[in-house]
Structures are given as C-alpha cells and as structure tokens.
C-alpha cells in the first residue's frame, strides 16, 4: 500500500485509487515504449511539417528529410563574393578539406574528385555543378557511377551588417553499407559530420588569417615531430 496510505476507513477507496494509478502507469509505459519503438524503427525521412525557422539538418528525427543530410554553418568575416570565388576554384578545396586529396577541373560543369576513404583507400568520382549563382550558391551532384552517391550545396549568406558571411555547406550522401558504414566512418573520424565541422573551421581560418592554424610543437613524445599536428 506504500505511497498512498490515507487512513484505515478509506481502505476501499484507497484500493481503487491504487488500481487506477497502476492502470495509468501501465498505459503511460506502453505508450512510452510504443513511442520509443516507433522512433527507433522510424528512421529518417520524416513526414511531419516543421514550423521552426531552422535549416533542415538541425531538425529532429521525424522532421528531418533524410538521416544522411549533413550541414554546418560558419560565419567568416569576409565578403560573400571573395569566399565564393575561392570555393568555386575547386582545386582550392584540397587545401583545407582533410579528405579531399585533389580536385581536377574537367570542364565548365564537371570536376574529378579524389577522396580519402576509411582504411587508407581512395575513391574517385566525377561531380557536376547543378546550380551556380556567383557570390551566392554552388550546388553539385556526383555522376551516376560514383561509388558513394553524394550531392551538396554551399550557400554564402550575408550575416548582420559588418559581420561578414554565413557559409552553409550541406551534403547528402549514400554511405557504403548504409547505416553500418556511417557508424564505421564515424569511428574512424571520416564521418561527414565531423569532416564538415573541421573543414569549415579550416576554411574560416584560411580566409580570415591567411593560414591554417596548427599547434605543431615539440613534446616529450619521442615518436612525434615538432612540425606536425597530431591530434
């Protein structure tokens, strides 16, 4: 009878209160479990229409259009056009994107990308520009035969006056081996979320300071050199 000991005369009523509480708890637990199961099995591809003024990648499951959608925004104290121009010369991207080994421009629309993949391997694909608004947007999509289908866009949005540009990069990709592949990539820190975050930080450093910040310095660790960044 523990928590609701009223008094002896109320025994009968007391019992019915208790039964009602147990019943309510059981309903709540079932509903909660059902919700969790639905959440777990539901995956991405939400169909609920959000009212929040946030970019799609910030939405919770159920609202987010796709689980593979990765996006990150960084504010850079430089004009949009300058940032766009630097990015549009895709060869420059290998200078601050960790996984991008090289980019070769093939023609107006197409470029060949060489990307480091988990396990020391490399993959190559050809990417085609699908939208190009100077100073505003660059969007691209991998061609049909790409080993990892991906598409992305980078938007250059004016920040508040005097505060430069908000750069928002969005990547949507089909990881090899689906969700499992994404998990493995995450463990190896090759996961696009981690990469997008770090690549955009390096882009900001390069554009604002003219160099990519490095803490390379000596230490008592014999295996390390003073000119390389280890962590």
């Amino acid at each position, binding site marked *: 009878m523990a928590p609701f000991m009223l008094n002896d005369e109320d025994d009968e009523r007391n019992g019915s209160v208790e039964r009602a509480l147990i019943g309510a708890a059981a309903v709540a637990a079932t509903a909660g479990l059902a919700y969790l199961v639905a959440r777990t099995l539901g995956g991405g591809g939400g169909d609920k229409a959000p009212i929040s003024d946030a970019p799609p990648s910030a939405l919770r499951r159920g609202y987010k259009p796709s689980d593979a959608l990765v996006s990150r925004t960084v504010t850079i104290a430089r004009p949009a056009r300058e940032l766009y121009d630097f990015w549009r010369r895709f060869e420059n991207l290998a200078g601050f994107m960790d996984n991008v080994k090289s980019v070769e421009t093939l023609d107006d629309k197409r470029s060949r990308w060489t990307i480091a993949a988990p396990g020391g391997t490399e993959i190559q694909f050809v990417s085609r520009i699908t939208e190009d608004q100077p100073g505003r947007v660059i969007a691209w999509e991998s061609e049909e035969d790409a080993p990892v289908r991906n598409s992305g866009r980078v938007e250059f949005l004016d920040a508040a006056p005097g505060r430069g540009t908000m750069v928002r990069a969005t990547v949507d990709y089909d990881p090899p081996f689906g969700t499992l592949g994404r998990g493995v990539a995450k463990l190896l820190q090759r996961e696009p979320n981690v990469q997008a975050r770090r690549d955009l930080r390096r882009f900001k450093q390069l554009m604002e300071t*003219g160099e990519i910040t*490095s803490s390379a*310095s000596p230490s008592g660790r014999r295996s390390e050199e*003073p000119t390389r960044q280890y962590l």
Partner: protein
Amino acid sequence: MRALTWHGRHDVRVDTVPDPEIVNPRDAIIKVTSTAICGSDLHLYDGYIPTMRAGDILGHENMGEVVEVGSKSTLKVGQRVVIPFTISCGSCFHCSKQQYSACDNSNPATTSDMSETLYGYPMGGAFGYAHLTGGYAGGQAEYLRVPYSDVGPVVIPDGLEDDQVLFLSDILPTGWMGAVNAEIEQGDTVAVWGCGPVGLFAIQSAFQLGAHRVIAIDHYPRRLQLAKQMGAEILDFREVDVRDALFEMTGGIGPDACIECVGMETHGLGIDNLADHAKVWLKLGTDRPAAFRQAILSCRKGGRVSVPGVYGGMMDKFPIGAFMEKGLTMKTGQTHVQKYTRQLLEMIQEGKLDTTWFISHHASLEDGPDMYRHWHDEQDSYTKIVLKPGLAKGEVKAKQEKQHEPA
C-alpha cells in the same frame, strides 16, 4: 632543447626534446629568458584539467628574445618580447571585439571538437594548457614557437627588467581584468578572495580603479601580509567567519564588489567544501567552488561578482536564489590579455604598478620539478617562482622580500 614536461599527476620532468620550428608564415620562435609557474599550472599538476597528454610541455607565462621569424611575422630578430598566454588571430569576430581569449581561429580544427562538445563553442588557443586549448607546447623550455606572432607579443623597451614585465603575459592583466569586471566606483569596498599573485594584482588594480577599501581573504599568513602591504585589510578565514566579518566591516551593507581569485580548488573548512572534496574524490564532481559561493552570499544587494578564478566543469549548489534576489551581476572569463597589455606596460613604466615585490624565487629550468613541488606544498613561502633557462642547475635564488611602497 631542454623542456619541462608533464607525465601525470604530480609528475613533471625535464626532458631533452626537439627544438620548435616555424610552421606557419605568421610564426616566430623565441629564446625563453623568463617563464613563471602559474597558479593554474597547479590544476594541471594536480591532474584536474582533462586532455593533457604525457610529454606535453608546460608554461604559459613566457618572455624571451626573438630568434627566428616567419615571412608574415611583424617581429624582428633580437627584440625582447612578452608573450600573452592567449593565442589570438586578431582577425575573427571575437578578436575584433577585443575578446581575445575567445578567438575563433587559434584552436586547431581538430582539437576544437573537445571544448565545443563541453561548452557549446570551441575555446581559444593557449600555450601549455592541455589539448582543450589546442595542445600548444608551453614555454617552460629553452625555446618557444609563437603562432600569430604579429598579434600577441609585447615588444619591451630597453631599461625594463624581465621581472618588471614578465607578468604582462597572464597574471597582471588577469588581476586587472578581474578588477575591471568588478565595475568599481569611487568609494567602493571591494572584497578579494585569494591572495595568490592574481589576487594581489586584483588588489592593486582595484585601488588604481578607485576602490576606497579592499578586504583580502586567504589563510596563508605570508600572502595576507603581502596583501596588507598593498593597502588591503585582511581576513584569515581560519580566524573569522568571512560573511560575518564582511557584514560588520561594511556596516551591514556588504562589499560593493567581490573578486573571486580562487577557482576550482578552494581550501577551507566549510561543510560545503568538505562535501565538494568528497564528490571530487569520488569523481562525482570536478570543481570545488566554496569561495565562489561565499562571494555571492557576501556581496551587497545590487553588487558585482567578478570571477577570474578558473573553473572547468559543473558546479553543485550554485546559490542562484541569492544571486537573483539580490540582483547581482557576474562577469568572468579567461583574460583578454592583448586588450590590456599596452595600458599596463605604460603603468609599469610610470611606476603605477609594482610587479616584482611578490616574486619569491628564481630558479633554473632544470630545478623545475622541485619548484613545482614547493609551489604545490609550500604556498606560504613560495609566492611566485620564475624559471630562467639561463641559470645552471641548483642555482635557486630566494629573493629578499621587498617592502612595497604604495604608488
């Protein structure tokens, strides 16, 4: 070169390590002439700061002579420079607001993840202070690589000794910003918790900024004596109930501003501190904020609380009721060193600030591990230790305490 390296809790050693090299165009290399051990180095020594790696070189209060510059550095070989402990790019949004310790670019892209996860946004870079702040080697060594050397270093004019200017690197601007953040008005009574070097500088700074009285709180007699020499009234918390004493000494109003220069490893016998000790010991907590609570509870209604003391994690029993109901204002943060160095250098040259009187010891780099032990165990007699890589092993000079003449 020789360098003082961290290997674990209460384990620092002097190792031979590679010399630093120019990595980026804005870098410079200095030959270290003086490097002090900071109170916050004790947090590393005690193992309270996460993301240290065995072999890390310590030291963030550094100065020396420029020996090599990158193509974009504005320094010249041969110049004597003091190096702010904060590494700042000078061109991001935060640097443009003079919030140098919040620099968005000086923590490398990879090490930024940790503090972004912990605090929501990445911390700025700093020398010799774990990988949360970038993993930069410190200057308790013969040489130091200085990134963004066109923004931080303070070029020292001839005629000033190392001891006079060394503390521009950290503790002088830290004490000064502690007093600035207390928004002192003419006639104010200011209470200062902790009479370590930062507290002592906060006392001097509070008087410079117009405080009528300063009341200093500690339990080391020698440190309290130094505070008294600076013109402060003193409270030994072993002798008095600090809140009662402050209430009485301020005629029932309370201090107008409270500056908490203690941080996460508070001493003291209060029941809350004993409970905090137990939680830290059981790894249930990280910070022991007894002085912080006392400052909030002691402060007058509508007063200001300034916190230069260092914290890292979560706090239990923040007296939010007292904070809200009394309408207090709190300011805190790692020091925006570059914002204050020029003004403070001028004040040193004009004799308005005495920056040398509490240095208790000069020692060689080779004697660094012993000095860390003394600094940790004998805080009463070791009030500030300056390591000089130029001195030979065993050459430890206890400096005669100089009588301070208030400026």
